[in-house]
């Protein structure tokens, strides 16, 4: 385990970005922080800016207006960071994928999907624990650190 991963997986600071969500996943995320589940005892806290965050939680689909903002946010995120998609919407778009305002999401390095509509707080906790465990064992590498795949298309020849 590298020093970076060790530091990343301790006391996660979470930034939560609801796209065009129905807010249910968002409530369950907050629920996981309030007294019954109380994730804050493990140092997991919400932060107000992506610049302070270790983890980006996505929920909901991203419509045309929201996608623009998502791209801006990903540029600002300090590496290394994890992206965890909460609920079915960021994974597949569910029933909203046929909508006229739906835009196929940009290629985001998503590290984990926590499915459910909405996932229970227990599922969210379990998902986060699994990701941390896999990172520490070296089973996965944060998506943002992976080398982008080699461009299969040949570079255009220079025009002389």
């Amino acid at each position, binding site marked *: 385990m590298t020093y970076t991963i060790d530091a990343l997986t301790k006391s996660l600071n979470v930034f939560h970005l609801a796209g065009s969500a129905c807010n*249910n996943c968002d*409530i369950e995320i907050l629920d996981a922080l309030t007294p019954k589940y109380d994730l804050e005892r493990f140092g997991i806290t919400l932060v107000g800016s992506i610049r302070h965050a270790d983890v980006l939680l996505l929920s909901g689909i991203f419509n045309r207006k929201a996608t623009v903002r998502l791209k801006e946010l990903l540029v600002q995120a300090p590496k290394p960071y994890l992206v965890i998609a909460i609920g079915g919407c960021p994974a597949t778009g569910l029933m909203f994928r046929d909508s006229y305002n739906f835009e196929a999401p940009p290629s985001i390095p998503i590290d984990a999907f926590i499915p459910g509509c909405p996932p229970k707080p227990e599922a969210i906790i379990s998902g986060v624990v699994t990701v941390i465990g896999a990172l520490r064992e070296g089973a996965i590498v944060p998506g943002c650190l992976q080398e982008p795949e080699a461009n299969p298309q040949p570079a255009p020849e220079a025009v002389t």
Partner: protein
Amino acid sequence: MSKRTIVPIGPYHALQEEPEFFKLHVEGETVVHLDIELGYNHRGIEKLSESKDFEETVFLVERICGICSTSHPIACVQAVEDAGDICVPERALFIRSTVGELERIHSHLLWLGLAGHFLGFNTLWMWAWRFREDVLNILELVTGNRNHYGMMKPGGVRRDINDTDIPVIIKLLEGLKDPIAMFRDAVIEDPLVHARTRGIGVLTREKAIAYGALGPTARASGYDIDVRRDHPHAAYGMVDWDVITCGNGDVFDKAVVRILELFESIRIIEQCLNQLKTVTGPVDSDPRFVATGEGIGHYEAPRGEVFHYVRSDGSNRPVRHKVRAPSYMNVPTNRETVLGETIADATIILAAVDPCYCCTERMAVAVDSPGGRRLWGAQDLIRMSCEKTYELMDESGLRGPEPPPCAAAGQTRDSGR
């Protein structure tokens, strides 16, 4: 004349459920104009609904909002039943009201907690959300899920409430009464809450009528409308309850209306459950087709009237499905209530209409000042709001011997929120 600056709140919503973009035009500390931009949450559900059959439509409208996730289905199935002249068994009506009122309790507790958070009253936040879990437990018992209950269908409900569950639910409800009474005392009799919310963000009755305000927002202004009483549906005509109204229209009254409604909701649920012991029969009339026609369904959601219009051409899909959520009418009233108030108060005023601001806030506040450009985050706005509370505590001598410094309050529970 002071310089006018624009304070953007959002677009990744500040205090709102839907990502919304508020542009506060301020002169000095005073808000002089509010511009609201929507669209970050537009999913085209009305158009999607035309490609789903009537049972799938209920499933779809449930996903409009995670907090009103049974209000939209109730309104939708009522519209379909109105269009197709479908009858509903009496037992199903009681179950609909039971689930609807349980949802109202959890929604109002959610609002109460977050309103406390914005005032720097984080104890209220944590307590309200802790007892909200008890409501979610009841909902899980009744419907099988904590949110998105999947209970409604045209012609009835999908799941019956077991007779053996009824005493358990009544016992759990009984356990909620003391905490709710505690919240009532904690809010209504707290001098600090008075100082922060009395006379703040007043919506007059005339403005409430002009903007078509709904639900607790309207009732706090003395505009006595409640769809449950005015246009009876589900089981509301068959049980005994009262409509809560107040007269001042400020943030305090909006909170009072919501807290007192919690008691009415418990009354309604208890009566419905008692009726379920005697009213037997099927819970679903199992309609086979929806006749040609058009129908309107509305239901009093926690935030106000939800309105659904469905037109059917005799096929299994709606030709047109119009959805109007209560926040659509309530949010524009912010343009009136926030005028003349300070930025520190804007936080709670924008939140007071309860536009389901359950998501965490993401906002950047940029103020163009002669000295340069400064960025404020959500934390700063909440810190400003907290600071105002502590100043008031000092002035009124309410501050305890060792007051929590505001910066600490901003970093323990709500760091960055």
